[in-house]
């Protein structure tokens, strides 16, 4: 189990226990975190699980592949630290990860 913190746009924090290999999206859905809709179920098709990765963690995550980068390009309110949480898997490297949710997903 790893530590994962998801911060809603409102500032409300969710401190979660995440299983090894599970995506940030699925961990959030399982914990009923509002703001992660994940309509396509993690197939990188909808961008309703968009999040901003805390600066300290960006370099420690696997970089986005082209399908994810394409989706993010025209997502609402993209930033340099934007990721799709369905594509982020929890690993020893991401233990302690902190992500924030965008305004469009309130």
């Amino acid at each position, binding site marked *: 189990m790893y530590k994962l913190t998801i911060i809603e746009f409102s500032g409300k924090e969710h401190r979660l226990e995440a299983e090894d290999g599970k995506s940030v999206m699925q961990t959030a859905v399982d914990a009923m975190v509002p703001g992660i809709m994940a309509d396509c179920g993690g*197939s990188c098709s909808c961008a309703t699980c968009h999040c901003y990765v805390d600066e300290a963690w960006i370099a420690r995550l696997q970089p986005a592949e082209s399908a994810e980068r394409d989706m993010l390009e025209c997502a609402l309110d993209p930033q340099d630290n934007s990721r799709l949480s369905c594509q982020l898997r929890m690993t020893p490297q991401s233990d302690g990860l902190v992500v924030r949710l965008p305004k469009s997903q309130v």
Partner: protein
Amino acid sequence: MRRDDVFVVIGAGHAGAELAVQAREQGWPGRIVLVGNEQALPYHRPPLSKAYLAGSASLETLALKARSTYDKAAVDLLLGRQVSRVDRAAARVDFEDGASLHYARLAFATGGRARPLPAAASGAESASNFHYLRSLGDVDRIRTRFVPGARLSIVGGGYVGLEVAAIAVQHGLKVVVLEAASRVLARVTAPRLSSFYEQVHRAAGVDLRTGVQVDGFQLDRESGLVTQVHCSDGERVDTDLVIAGIGLLPNTELAARAGLAVDDGILVDAGSRTSDPAIVAAGDCTRFHSALYGRSIRLESVPNALEQSRSAAATVCGKERIHDSAPWFWSDQYDLKLKMVGLSHGYDQLLLRGSVEERSFSAFYLKGHRILAVDTVNRAPEFMLAKRFVAERIPVDPERLVDDAVPLKSLLPAA
């Protein structure tokens, strides 16, 4: 709403699972019961014809939500249970095993089932190598014969048929697709898209035949297996495995027998209310008026099921959440990510942007200057923008639309 009020959700697919958990999040104070007729924890259906069939996704990864999520939301799961009747006068759900449940509010999320193949009535349906593809159980059975070298006949060139064909040919099966219409995906896309997908499948090694009606099956008397598919043009296709995917029938019988208004779908409004104020419905089993298209529609779509469920959960909790988003769909085949938004019915012009040869293009279905629908192939950024053009009915200049040098984003009105 009182603490002893029970909310019963019939159907544990995408719509039902979302509805039950959302109702708790929206504030339902009493018991919530989610009833499903399969044993498995509610699961993602789209991967069934893709990653799960290919063996690259495990059963665990298919779960829509973890079991602990239902515990956390205090949703009682009644899995592997069949509802036999809804008695609205008594506000009661009866089960086939004789049990029953009283409800204060009820939801139908009964989904759909595979449309039966008329030619299968001759006995093929009981053969252990003849399958429809709708449930986890279907795919588990298919997988026992889904082996390299096997001769697979797919009846129907729709999304399910073509997704299976792509996985199968990559898995080393010998694949024949038999489509009755003159082209694949005829119900959902323009001829240009159909011919593109036909060409891609043929290049991958699929024996794809259009304009071919299946009118019967040869069964081996001893094994009971289908050995040949009979086509109306006299063609006989030797086969080890048959998968039929010719569309979906909404599961409306239970609702109709209960006296709810049903017309090829349980009729609901934008708040997912049925003709009975105590009952909502969501997902593939419903039909509703689309404000965007000005007509009644029934969708076979995961995003629609989820959106409608969120509206239904709000309604049940005495809130209002209008459902009127632009419908969207996706289909992954080979390296092609097809994403579609809107309904193209009634278009008068099809415009292409990008390069079909380079497998990166978008097809716009226009009526005048309005974009009714867009199909994008390997163009995710344009899909994201297309959702806005369709949902917000943003008029476009066709000449600029087809110019790939003009960023699509620049055609949006200035904020």
